[in-house]
């Protein structure tokens, strides 16, 4: 069993929480480090329901907050993983989730990438979210795909 760390993509979605917990369990079971990668991008912080009017202004405000929020969010979830017994590092960066996950998996010589079936872009039953789909198809890494309601 390779001993490279597990690189887990985490976000605000329900699947992200399930992915974090599954990654924590696995890291503990396999006795490897857990690296949490939170990819954030300012536009994702703009609520979908927002109309055109004023959205630019709002987007700016969101962008300013997003990095601080991303770091704070990552710390909260890192704590949750530590409580589960894992050794954790966090990375919060502005960028594309798939590319960041592959980049860090490569840098860390990861033994696995963990992601939720769906990110915050919405939940469609029986269809993989775009990040999970892309990783499973192209990454060349073992990928643990975790659904919203993971049976324990």
């Amino acid at each position, binding site marked *: *069993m390779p001993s490279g760390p597990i690189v887990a993509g985490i976000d605000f979605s329900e699947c992200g929480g399930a992915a974090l917990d*599954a990654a924590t369990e696995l890291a503990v*079971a*396999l*006795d490897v480090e857990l690296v949490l990668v939170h990819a954030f991008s300012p536009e994702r912080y703009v609520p979908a329901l927002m109309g055109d009017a004023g959205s630019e202004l709002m987007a700016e405000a969101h962008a300013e907050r997003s990095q601080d929020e991303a770091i704070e969010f990552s710390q909260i979830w890192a704590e949750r993983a530590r409580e589960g017994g894992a050794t954790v590092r966090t990375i919060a960066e502005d960028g594309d989730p798939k590319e960041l996950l592959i980049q860090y998996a490569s840098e860390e010589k990861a033994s*696995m990438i963990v992601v939720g*079936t769906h990110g915050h872009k919405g939940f469609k*039953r*029986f*269809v*993989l979210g775009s990040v*999970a*789909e892309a990783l*499973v*198809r*192209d*990454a*060349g*890494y*073992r*990928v*643990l*795909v*975790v*659904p919203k*309601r*993971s*049976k*324990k």
Partner: protein
Amino acid sequence: MTVLVAIDFSRQSRKALDWAIDYAVARNEDMVVAHAFAGSRTALGVKDGHLDPIGQVEAEMNMGDAVELTGKWSQDARDAGIEVTTVAEKAKPADFILEQAQKAHATIIVIGSRGHGALKRTLLGSVATKVAAEATCPVVVIPPSED
């Protein structure tokens, strides 16, 4: 708790079995080794966008061979001290894996990905992605490039 590993006798599915064995030993879990006998080489070839030598082997195999081979692969898990159940049936792979995982109350599914052939952009969906999308438990997908 139970780990379900899907095998089709390809190299990737051997990697899947090996990973599942390590995992089951580390967590002291039971295992279900599941094989869906697809039988048709054409179907496999079309799915991957190229002729797959594994498909060729399977086309020449009959159900009895598949059952025997499933048993042989399962033995490696038993030799590692794992309690193993084997299931091998003529069935649609993704549906069969999902069904068996439900039945066994699997807490994790391990499956190899065949990767993509020339038609990867047009032929969406593989057994692994379908299983990962529809399973109610986490799914480990083992990539084709892994050595």
